[in-house]
């Protein structure tokens, strides 16, 4: 028998209570990990952004477009290796309006040079480039809608309604996948020129944004500054950011949601601490006379406090480990895959970040320590003679 084993044995005193507390902590850890994974999946695109890509967009707002001639100007910058462009199409599959996926009108040849982490699993880039009404789709999106090479796909867009019958027809020429964990595998790409030709005159020859690849990744920020300076005297000015900053500014639109999730995950930890604190406080109250007897036979206040703290930490560690043990299969085997398949646009890679898994267990321990602080202090301050008089 040791001090630690004595403290841990107290957990066996009321097995049901111990089990329920461990489960309570475990559920809190699962919820915390899920919420943190949501944030991580959402912000992952910013964290894992390419270091050598610069995104230039309208200085005022992301939704305003740039003149297409800017692309050539940017390409002529000395430090730019390649530049491409895209327009947000906002396409929807008629009959499946609630199924969201990104639809981008791109320059077919250069886009996949700038985004070379996108690779073709079926079909070829050449087939896509040659067919003006061709499209390439992510493998996840293709699986979801059952699209195969050669399939005709009809989309409609609220931003660019086709002047003829509001819909746009495409032929699937390629299916891509990616080597990047955070790249979306549910995007629908098609020719920018196809959109431009069919779009109303007023929005023709405009691009949503330009993406440049720099020759020297360490000079990416300087390249952005140089691009912006080029258009300083134009009516339409640009704001160029490295890809991480661009993604972050895009996410800023969701900052309220992200902050709310942050707050909720903090509240969950607080609840977990209160659950633990309550259990520990109940245990201390029930054992007052025992602690009195222990103090009488020579145990010091620090020993009594130590027993309470160790008990709380064992409890919280068990809860943390069980929570982690439940979270991994829930996310890795079920929820993660489902979200990637069905909400790949928002969660292209939904997996628990290892650092967060470790953090959850350590946070459980830390909260166990915090939760036990007050009961431990109270237990250590018990007056021996009063404690011995108390009959529970």
């Amino acid at each position, binding site marked *: 028998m040791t001090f630690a084993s004595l403290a841990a044995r*107290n957990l066996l005193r009321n097995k049901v209570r111990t089990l329920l507390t461990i489960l309570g902590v475990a559920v809190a850890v699962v919820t915390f990990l899920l919420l943190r994974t949501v944030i991580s999946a959402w912000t992952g695109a910013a964290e894992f952004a390419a270091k050598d890509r610069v995104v230039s967009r309208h200085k005022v707002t992301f939704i305003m477009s740039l003149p297409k001639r800017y692309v050539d100007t940017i390409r002529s910058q000395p430090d730019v290796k390649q530049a491409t462009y895209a327009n947000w199409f906002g396409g929807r599959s008629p009959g499946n309006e609630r199924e969201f996926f990104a639809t981008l009108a791109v320059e077919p040849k250069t886009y996949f040079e700038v985004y070379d982490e996108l690779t073709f699993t079926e079909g070829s880039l050449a087939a896509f480039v040659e067919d003006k009404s061709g499209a390439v789709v992510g493998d996840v999106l293709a699986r979801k809608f059952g699209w195969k090479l050669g399939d005709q796909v009809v989309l409609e867009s609220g931003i660019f309604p086709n002047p003829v019958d509001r819909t746009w027809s495409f032929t699937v020429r390629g299916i891509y996948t990616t080597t990047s964990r955070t790249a979306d595998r549910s995007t629908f790409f098609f020719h920018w020129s196809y959109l431009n030709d069919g779009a109303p005159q007023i929005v023709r020859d405009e691009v949503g944004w330009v993406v440049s690849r720099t020759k020297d990744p360490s000079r990416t920020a300087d390249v952005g500054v140089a691009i912006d300076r080029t258009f300083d005297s134009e009516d339409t000015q640009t704001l160029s950011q490295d890809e991480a900053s661009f993604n972050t500014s895009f996410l800023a639109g969701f900052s309220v949601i992200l902050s709310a999730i942050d707050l909720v995950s903090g509240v969950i930890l607080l609840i977990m601490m209160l659950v633990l604190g309550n259990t520990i406080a109940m245990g201390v109250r029930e054992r007052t006379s025992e602690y009195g007897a222990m103090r009488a036979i*020579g145990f*010091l206040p620090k020993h009594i406090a130590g027993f309470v703290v160790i008990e709380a930490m064992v409890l919280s560690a068990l809860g943390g480990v069980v929570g982690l043990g439940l979270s991994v299969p829930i996310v890795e085997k079920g929820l993660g895959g489902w979200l990637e398949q069905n909400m790949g646009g928002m969660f292209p890679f939904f997996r628990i970040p290892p650092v967060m898994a470790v953090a959850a267990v350590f946070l459980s321990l830390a909260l166990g320590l915090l939760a036990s602080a007050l009961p431990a202090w109270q237990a250590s301050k018990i007056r021996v003679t009063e404690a011995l008089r108390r009959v529970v």
Partner: protein
Amino acid sequence: MTALIELRQIVKEFTRGGETLRVLENLDLDVERGSFEALMGPSGSGKSTLLNLMAGLDRPTGGSIAVDGKRVDRMSEGELAYWRANSVGFVFQSYNLLPVLTAVENVELPLLLSPVHATERRKRAEVALKVVGLTDRMSHYPRMLSGGQEQRVSIARAIVADPLLIVADEPTGDLDRRSADEILTLLETLNSEMGKTIVMVTHDPAAAARAKLTRHLDKGRLRATEASAREPHGA
């Protein structure tokens, strides 16, 4: 015989709800080494308070307490805890065993505080349980024992560190007559054969009669001291 415990001009006051209550009033008392004494008196007479002071569980408001020549009333909290662990064995009315520990582990508990090796701790606990006649109940948890057996485990815990003094607060209060007799016989044996000094608080005249000396307290003062009829006290 020489005095093991010397109390001089002991005053003990408690403050309850803004009112100060004097429980012990200028009390002088010597407890001889090797004696077995009973403290009796009505509720509120101060007998448990006196026992707590002798055992170093509480501090006097005034006066001095010396046990085996050591000024207990001047010790710090840590020194007092260390002294109690090595010099005093406690027997409580409600036994106060830890339900999650077996009998032998409960007896071992006070030795956790000493630098004794685990094997030696276990050996000493087994010897103590043998003394109280519970060799066959070592692995039993308190819930598996009768009240008398639990109190015997409690006595084994009290003697395992070989203390100078054993204090017992109503040790037979929760027991039937037969079990109480067994416990009192055990205390007598510890006193007569192992030379332990025992001070016992009791309400029960039959239990007090088993002690060598009975002191009567009333309203914080010693009113009478009588030697047992069975074994007259010479002091």
